[in-house]
């Protein structure tokens, strides 16, 4: 629906503004998997508070905005095998590739980084093939 697209565009502008603030303010690339990963594996110990506060902002803003919405649903599957398999793939994959939708997608592609573009093509292609396999062939999602 076009109204969803407009909200998508507005949300995108907000996401990009966050990335711009993080880049020009702190000199860092706003990549969710890198920010979380550095906390998880200890490689970002020196910047732990910066990372935690960033993630706090990410988690809290939806709570503040939620009262303005009639209903909010993630429509997340209740298939725990799928959730755990997906979590492992996302965790391992983003760390090996050094980025996810925000780092490679938003920040990388906007500076025409060849790595960002290649990574984005790979995960979109894999995601598309994944949906074909899991939804249309196996019927598990």
């Amino acid at each position, binding site marked *: 629906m076009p109204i969803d*697209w407009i909200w*998508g*565009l*507005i949300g*995108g*502008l*907000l996401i*990009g*503004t*966050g*990335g711009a*603030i*993080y*880049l*020009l*303010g*702190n*000199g*860092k*690339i706003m990549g969710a*998997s890198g920010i*979380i990963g550095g906390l998880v594996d200890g490689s970002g110990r020196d910047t732990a508070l910066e*990372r935690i*506060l*960033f993630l*706090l*902002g*990410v*988690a809290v803003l*939806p709570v503040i905005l*939620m009262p303005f919405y009639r209903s*909010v649903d993630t429509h*997340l*599957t*209740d298939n725990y095998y799928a*959730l*755990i398999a*997906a*979590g*492992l*793939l*996302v*965790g391992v*994959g983003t760390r*090996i590739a*050094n980025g996810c*939708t925000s780092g490679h997608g938003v920040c990388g592609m*906007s500076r025409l980084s060849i*790595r960002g573009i290649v*990574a*984005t093509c790979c*995960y979109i292609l*894999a*995601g598309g*093939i*994944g*949906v*074909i396999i*899991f939804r*249309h062939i196996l019927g598990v999602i």
Partner: protein
Amino acid sequence: MLRHLIALIAGSFFGAGLFVSGMTDTTKVQGWLDVFGNWDPTLAFVMGGAMIPMALAWLVRARRQTSLIGTPLPPKPSTKIDKNLIIGSVMFGMGWGLVGLCPGPSIASLTYGGAGLYAFLAAMITGMVVAPFVRSRLDRLVPAE
């Protein structure tokens, strides 16, 4: 202090953007990936929208020596396309397609994602912890030229 305030503000914009764009709704993400189903183009608008301020920020970056807080700005991006980038991204994409979650939205929906989200997060964190072992395994399997 300023560094931490900037991180909180940047994260708030990111979280607000993920929320209002509908990117914490997994059906919108899977709907975009599902080109043979009921295709939903919203994600393309989100990506496109995010590119605009970010591209401007990169233009500003080119004229600056340091960030606002005085730290060095990111150097020119590497152009090395290696197997880790490809294999990692393919793994990530498979997981992303399977349940419709990537790292950003998994944090944005922390308070309303329910038990399933916690299972996903626990697995994602486990994956991030074991990633260095998987990477060294991969290096042995497919040595870099």
